[in-house]
């Protein structure tokens, strides 16, 4: 497990993935910041607005599954192509191998996505004015009143919003990394193993689950989006856990098929 985590946090892939996602967050915030730089301080956007604006703009949600898969999915493809996986499974077991890989994928995906968000939050809390708003202030973010972030933004520094979003992003990132890992076992192609989670995300976002299972299916970015309510938290976590479980079962099935033909 320790070795697996060391590989998952291999500096080149890990930092590149985090940097890519960090740039995605700032694709919205930097142009906004440049635009409002010479405004009166009272009318400038707060650190909270600039930190989470990139998420609501949409690009981050789309790129996140791809970035989360970067640390582990190509590594899995390498192990399959070099047949190193066969030796590892023969010396251990499929269950043990799956546990190591899935844990490393979840932790690395969560660290990439959650880490990029944390870096973004730190940057904008240094550059922009901190979020200390009152309900009648100009800088209030117009969340819906039943949204869990609405009251949290009035707390000093709006820290619960940051923590909640970071946890949501990290959890989703971890599950997308497992999706990438599963894709890697079946396609054995580095590019496809990164793109397939992005495709799954897109089809989910475009409403495929609503076609298959009926309406009322949560949006894949609900856990860190601007209309989050408590019932949506439970629904989203349950759907993501189901996705993770399906991916793990498929991953084990893929490994068993590989062992049979090895």
């Amino acid at each position, binding site marked *: 497990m320790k070795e697996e985590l060391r590989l998952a946090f291999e500096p080149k892939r890990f930092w590149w993935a985090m940097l890519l996602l960090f740039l995605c967050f700032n*694709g919205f915030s930097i*142009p906004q910041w440049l635009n409002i730089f010479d405004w009166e301080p009272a009318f400038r956007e707060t650190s909270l607005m600039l930190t989470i604006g990139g998420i609501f703009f949409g*690009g981050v949600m789309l790129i996140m599954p791809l970035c989360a898969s970067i640390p582990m999915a190509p590594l899995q493809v390498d192990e399959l192509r070099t047949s190193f996986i066969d030796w590892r499974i023969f010396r251990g077991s499929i269950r043990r191998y799956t546990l190591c890989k899935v844990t490393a994928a979840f932790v690395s995906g969560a660290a990439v996505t959650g880490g990029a968000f944390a870096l973004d939050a730190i940057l904008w809390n240094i550059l922009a004015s901190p979020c200390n708003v009152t309900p009648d202030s100009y800088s209030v973010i117009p969340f819906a009143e039943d949204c869990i972030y609405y009251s949290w933004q009035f707390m000093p520094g709006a820290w619960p919003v940051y923590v909640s979003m970071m946890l949501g992003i990290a959890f989703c990132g971890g599950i997308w990394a497992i999706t990438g890992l599963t894709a890697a076992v079946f*396609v054995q192609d580095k590019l*496809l193993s990164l793109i397939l989670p992005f*495709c799954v995300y*897109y*089809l989910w976002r475009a*409403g*495929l689950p609503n076609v298959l299972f009926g309406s009322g299916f949560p949006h894949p970015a609900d856990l860190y989006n601007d209309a989050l309510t408590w019932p949506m938290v439970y629904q989203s976590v349950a759907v993501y856990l189901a996705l993770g479980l399906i991916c793990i079962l498929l991953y084990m099935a893929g490994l068993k098929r590989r062992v049979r033909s090895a």
Partner: protein
Amino acid sequence: MRKKGNLLRAQGAMILGNFDSWIRSPRTILMLLFTVTASFLTVRSYSIGLRASGFTMTATESLAYLLLTGFKNQFLASVTFLVMVSELPRRIPFQQYTLIRASRTRWISAQLLYCFLMVVFMIAFMTLVFALFLLPVSSPGSGWSDTARLAQGLEPELAYVPEWIRIHFSPIQALIMAIVPIFLFWFTMVLIILFFSLLGAPIIGLALYSTILFSSVIVLFEDLPGFFMPM
């Protein structure tokens, strides 16, 4: 001296060999499947919009409208195609064989024609898929439904197709016109990927186009000081 017919046949064999290998590759098959599913969802959402507003559109004008908007999502269609053409020229044993047997000029011209064929295939495939999904939600007739609705007092901003296009072109002409920029963008993309691959740096072409495509959904260009979006 070899006969001209034999040379053309050899050229054709090189193009078809590459195309056959491309169409059977997992990247192409999976991305085509993804395209079909995404197209279904796009047409579904379009038809829900039509139904909600109580409008009807003919299949040709719906297709023209969807193509004028870059298959409703130019970013996604281009990323899908980028993944499909990411390996250029294809690294297959057949390539080594043709490189030995044919002259460099002939090999390059075969690669260019193969690129052309891929772009034409993808546009034809997507147009066909959209047309098939549009059939059940389209109404019979010809001409622009928007023009008829405007004559009945519809507000101009609710029209699907811009006025200039409706005045100057028929739906079929607009459909053909919409294909041209998509073709030019994709063909340039494929040629640039091929160019950098032949220079020995395939990653540059891919990175360049990934940056161009992804920056459109990541960077808020409109807010950059001094930046004006072309109209």
